[in-house]
C-alpha cells in the first residue's frame, strides 16, 4: 500500500473505523485468532478498515511513521516486548492510535515469552548460540546491534535483558486476555468499539468471573493426596480435574474463554491472567492448591513429609506463572 492509497482510503472511507494490528514477541496465534471469528469478519470489514497489519498487508514501518497522530482508531497489539524494535513500534503505534488494546496473554501479562525472565540475555545467548549441542558456531558469533561489513553497516534490534508486558512500556487503554482471546470476547470488544460503548480506561474486556465459573464439571469439596499429570489419570468424566489430582488453574484465572480447554478434558493453564480482584495469579493458585492438598493425620506429620508432598509440584514457575511472569510481584529471577 503506497502513500496515494493511504490518502485515497482516507477520503473514501472516512466514516469507517481504522484498525491496526501488530505483533511483537508472540507466536502468531493471536493473528489467526482475529480470523477465528469466522464469517463475522465480514461484519468487521463492513465497519472497519485495516490500516496496518504486517502479517497480512504489505505496509512498511515508514508508512506508519508518516501517518498523522491519532490516525488509527483502534490498535490491537499482541505479543510482549523483547527487542528494541518491538518497543519502538509500541511507542509509535501508541502515538498514532486513539485506543490501544493489549491483545492476548503476551501483551497483557507477558505470556509464555515472559518465562525468559528466569534467565538473562547472556544466559539465553549462551544456550541459543554457543552451548546448544546441535549448534555449530566455531567463531562464537553472537547477535550484535551493529556490524560493519564491506557494503556498509548492518543493524539488528537490541535484544533486551528481560521481557516486558505491553503496559510496562506504553500506556494501554484496554486488555483482551487469553492465549489467544476467545472469538466471543473479540466480537464483544469489536462490538463495544463500533457502538462506542467501551468501559472506562484500563478495563479488561472480559467477564468478571473465573474459569471455574464457566466450567461444566461437577465440583464438590476438594481434597487431593497426590498430584497427577493428565496422562496418569484414570479419568472420571464430569468431575472437576482439580479434584482428580490434576493441577488446573481455573480457580485463579479470569474466564471469558468458556472453559474450552476443559471441554476437551485438558486442565486450565491460566492464559486468562489473574482472576478479578487478584493481582498475582501464581500466588492465588499456590494458595488454592496448597489448601486442597491434604492428608489424613497431617498434624502428626513432620516438615519433611509435608515437603515431600509439595515436591510433587515439579515446575512451580512454569505451572503458576506460565503466562504472567513479567507482571507478577516477583517478575524475574533474582540474581542473588
Amino acid at each position, binding site marked *: 500500500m503506497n502513500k496515494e492509497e493511504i490518502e485515497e482510503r482516507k477520503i473514501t472511507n472516512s466514516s469507517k473505523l481504522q484498525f491496526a494490528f501488530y505483533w511483537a514477541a508472540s507466536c502468531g496465534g493471536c493473528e489467526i485468532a482475529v480470523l477465528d471469528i469466522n464469517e463475522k469478519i465480514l461484519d468487521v470489514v463492513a465497519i472497519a478498515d485495516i490500516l496496518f497489519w504486517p502479517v497480512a498487508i504489505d505496509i512498511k514501518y515508514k508508512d506508519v511513521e508518516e501517518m498523522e497522530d491519532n490516525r488509527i482508531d483502534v490498535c490491537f497489539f499482541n505479543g510482549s516486548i523483547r527487542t528494541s524494535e518491538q518497543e519502538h513500534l509500541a511507542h509509535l503505534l501508541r502515538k498514532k492510535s486513539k485506543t490501544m488494546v493489549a491483545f492476548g496473554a503476551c501483551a497483557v501479562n507477558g505470556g509464555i515469552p515472559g518465562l525468559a525472565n528466569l534467565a538473562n540475555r547472556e544466559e539465553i545467548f549462551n544456550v541459543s548460540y554457543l552451548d546448544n549441542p546441535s549448534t555449530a558456531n566455531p567463531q562464537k558469533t553472537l547477535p550484535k546491534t551493529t556490524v560493519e561489513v564491506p557494503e556498509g553497516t548492518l543493524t539488528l534490534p537490541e535484544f533486551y535483558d528481560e521481557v516486558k508486558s505491553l503496559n510496562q512500556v506504553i500506556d494501554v487503554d484496554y486488555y483482551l486476555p487469553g492465549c489467544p482471546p476467545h472469538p466471543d470476547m473479540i466480537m464483544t470488544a469489536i462490538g463495544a468499539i463500533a457502538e462506542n460503548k467501551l468501559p472506562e480506561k*484500563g478495563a479488561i474486556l472480559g467477564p468478571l468471573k473465573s474459569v471455574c465459573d464457566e466450567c461444566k464439571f461437577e465440583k464438590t469439596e476438594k481434597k487431593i493426596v497426590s498430584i497427577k499429570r493428565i496422562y496418569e489419570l484414570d479419568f472420571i468424566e464430569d468431575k472437576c480435574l482439580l479434584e482428580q489430582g490434576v493441577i488446573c488453574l481455573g480457580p485463579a484465572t479470569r474466564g471469558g474463554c468458556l472453559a474450552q480447554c476443559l471441554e476437551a478434558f485438558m486442565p486450565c493453564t491460566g492464559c486468562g491472567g489473574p482472576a478479578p480482584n487478584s493481582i498475582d495469579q501464581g500466588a492465588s493458585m499456590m494458595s488454592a492448591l496448597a489448601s486442597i492438598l491434604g492428608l489424613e493425620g497431617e498434624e502428626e506429620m513432620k516438615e519433611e513429609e509435608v515437603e515431600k508432598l*509439595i515436591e510433587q509440584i515439579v515446575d512451580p514457575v512454569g505451572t503458576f506463572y506460565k503466562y504472567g511472569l513479567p507482571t507478577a*510481584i516477583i517478575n524475574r529471577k533474582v540474581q542473588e
Partner: protein
Amino acid sequence: MTITQIKSDMKEFEPNIVGFLCNWCSYAGADLAGTSRIQYPPNIKIIKVMCSGRVNPMFVVNALQQGADGVLIGGCHPGDCHYQHGNMLARRRIAVLKTLLEFMGIDPRRVRLTWVSASEGRKFANVITEITEDIRELGPMKKIKRVNVW
C-alpha cells in the same frame, strides 16, 4: 568503644524482617515475651493476622518485593489452631512458596514458618534471635523492581 568502632558497627547490615503472627498463639507469645521483659532483636516488624492460614503467599512475596529481607510466619502448634486447621494450610502454602522462591533465585531460608504458643515467650525471643542471625548471614535481599501495579 571508640567512635570509629561505633561507626563500623553501625555499618553492619541490619535485617528488615516482617512477621505475620496469628492472633491466638504467636502474637500472644510475642506479647508475653514483651511483658516478661525478654530481650530480643528489634529487627522484626510484626503484623497481626487472625490466623496463620490467612497468610496468602502473595503477602510474603509482596513483603520481599517491597524491601523485607526476611519473612516470619508464626502460628499455633499443630492441633492447637483456633480455627482447627488454619496452621496446616499455612504450612502447605509456605512449603509451596519456598519451592517457587528457589526457582526465582531467592533463598528459601528468607521465609520461615514457626509454631509459638501463647505461653512460649522465651521461645518467641529465641526464634526472633535465630531468624535475625540467619538473615544477617544471608545478607540484604536484592531489590526487585516492579514496573507497574495493576
